[in-house]
């Protein structure tokens, strides 16, 4: 197992090298450039050339790449052109916000999606099942920004139950440790801040988690239905086991593989940022960082951000593979 994990981590090296080259060429192929974005459309060619020169963009691409990679090897991703801050610092500021949001969304999606799918499968072809299937179809079809606005309208504007902006009430003071407010407030042992940060997570979490919820519910239902027809479930019934014991001990465990796969993929997606949700709820995570980076042709931000997310993606997938082995002993051997 350790060998497997190490091998997968070593695989990151060629992946990151390939990705860095691809990114480097790709961002430079985008129309416009950081100088135009910085100076505006009316900038004179001379001024643009000046700015390009100051960032070294006038040199051959290969030279630029080698200079860049020399720094990357020392984990220095350069400075953001638009923000004038270290890319690494900026990522470390933004990523905790994304983790909070993704965790809230996945908690919502898994906590409701898995039981919903399980119940729908157990009640196959009843009104409950039809309702669940229809609801999850609606769930995957609702545009995130639309759902987010509706939630905002109902819970914030109509009933003023929940906050809709930011991660913590601005007047509240919380010492920064991890930049994940829920954890920081636990470290500070501040119940008020904890509740406040959770309240800030509810609406964005629901908005972002609805699509994963629908996908998880559907895959759970399908997977459980398949397992319910397996011979070993009949064996479990023939042993006289109680229905609950069969569900938990035999059905769910075997149905888990496809569910974990989907959860892993969705988590990876959410961790790479949620541009729309971040926009609506003024949540400064990876999504808005990268979106801004692309708009402003902020080469170092795009390159560093995407490479960072690639590492996150590989790690999430690795975790999923390790979970496979925990769930299914047949995978452990090979």
């Amino acid at each position: 197992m350790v060998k497997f994990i190490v091998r997968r981590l070593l695989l990151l090296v060629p992946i990151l090298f390939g990705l860095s080259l691809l990114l480097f060429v790709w961002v430079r192929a985008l129309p416009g450039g950081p100088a135009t974005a910085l100076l505006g459309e009316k900038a004179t060619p001379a001024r643009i050339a000046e700015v390009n020169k100051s960032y070294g963009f006038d040199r051959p691409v290969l030279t630029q790449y080698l200079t860049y990679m020399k720094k990357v090897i020392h984990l220095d991703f350069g400075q953001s052109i638009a923000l004038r801050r270290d890319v690494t610092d900026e990522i470390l500021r933004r990523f905790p916000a994304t983790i909070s949001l993704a965790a809230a969304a996945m908690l919502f999606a898994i906590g409701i999606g898995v039981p919903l799918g399980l119940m729908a499968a157990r009640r196959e072809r009843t009104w409950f099942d039809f309702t669940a299937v229809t609801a999850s179809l609606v769930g995957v079809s609702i545009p995130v920004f639309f759902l987010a606005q509706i939630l905002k309208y109902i819970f914030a504007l109509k009933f003023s139950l929940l906050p809709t902006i930011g991660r913590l009430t601005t007047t509240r003071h919380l010492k920064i440790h991890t930049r994940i407010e829920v954890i920081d407030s636990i470290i500070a042992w501040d119940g008020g801040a904890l509740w406040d940060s959770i309240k800030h997570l509810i609406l964005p979490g629901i908005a972002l988690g609805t699509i994963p919820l629908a996908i998880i519910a559907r895959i759970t239902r399908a997977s459980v239905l398949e397992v319910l027809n397996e011979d070993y479930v009949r064996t479990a019934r023939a042993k006289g086991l109680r229905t609950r014991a069969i569900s938990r001990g035999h059905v769910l465990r075997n149905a888990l593989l496809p569910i974990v796969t989907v959860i892993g993929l969705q988590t990876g997606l959410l961790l790479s940022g949620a541009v729309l949700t971040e926009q609506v709820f003024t949540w400064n995570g990876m999504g808005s960082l990268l979106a801004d980076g692309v708009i402003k042709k902020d080469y170092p931000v795009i390159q560093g951000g995407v490479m960072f997310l690639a590492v996150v993606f590989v790690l999430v997938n690795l975790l999923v593979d390790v979970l496979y082995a925990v769930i299914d002993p047949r995978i452990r051997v090979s």
Partner: protein
Amino acid sequence: MNPTDPPDADTSRATGAPISSALVKPPILVVEDLHVTFQIHGAKALRAVDGVSFEVRAGETVGIVGESGSGKSVTSLAILGLLPARGVTVTGSIKLDGEELLGKSEREMQDIRGRRAAMVFQDPMSSLNPVLTVGRQIGETIRRHQKIDRAKARAKAAELLDRVGIPEATRRLGSYPHQLSGGMRQRVVIAIALATEPALLIADEPTTALDVTIQAQVLDLLRNLVSESDTALIMITHDLGVVAGMCNHVNVMYSGRIVETGQRYALFGSPRHHYTRGLLASVPRLDGSQDRLLPIPGSPSDTIPWAKGCAFSPRCPAVIDACIGSPPELVTSEINTRVRCVNPAPPTDVMWAPR
């Protein structure tokens, strides 16, 4: 011949007449007029089992023989209440130790299944849960029905594995099904079924998925376990060799009904129903007394509803006009077998001696 099997012990039962002797134990299982109908939404109702009656006594092995689709597996699932609740109608009577099982709730059946009546399934690969250890799968049956702690259940599971002939039983408790061979797995399935010493054991094609060399071992094991513990055993199979080697009493099923039933020597010595004869003629023999195998023409789906005559008549070599029109009844023959045929084969013809 099996020495534990008195050759004529049950000839009287074949006639259906009760025998007032202390030697004959009361039946563990009595199935009477069992009907199972599948009703899939929008389709015609399918009678999978159509008035089946038989009984099994302690220490006795009863065979149910037939092709796929004859209703033999459905019969066994109906006895344990394992048929799906929706779209299936079960009527008639199934009495276990005198207690009626039909009409019991799922919860009540859960108390009976695994404790008083257990089942060995066909494919040991798919009937064991791949993600749970063998020890857990045996142990959970024990702990479901007996109030003992985990450690004792584990010890008992090891004991069971030992009893079904698995070496290094204690170590094997931690194995997963995929780490065992097919024969080993079927031994585990048998150990699970025997975990709580049920009075009735149903084995549904227990050797079909196994290598031929392993088949004999598993059958021997079943035979010994049954005779040691006085368990009533129902063998469901299409393998006549298995039936001839193990069963005291044989029921041949076709299209949901028993077409011939009797004590094994009587039945195999002189099969009267053309379907039974067809089954026997299609078994290869090693003594060369037969030039070629004689398959039964057609397939089990070439059938007519029993209400319109004999369901086997479309495939029967001896079909006469009387076969069509009304369903044939089970009639007692001169040698105490019962045959559902209006034109049975003559009794003199000795076709097949059990091996």
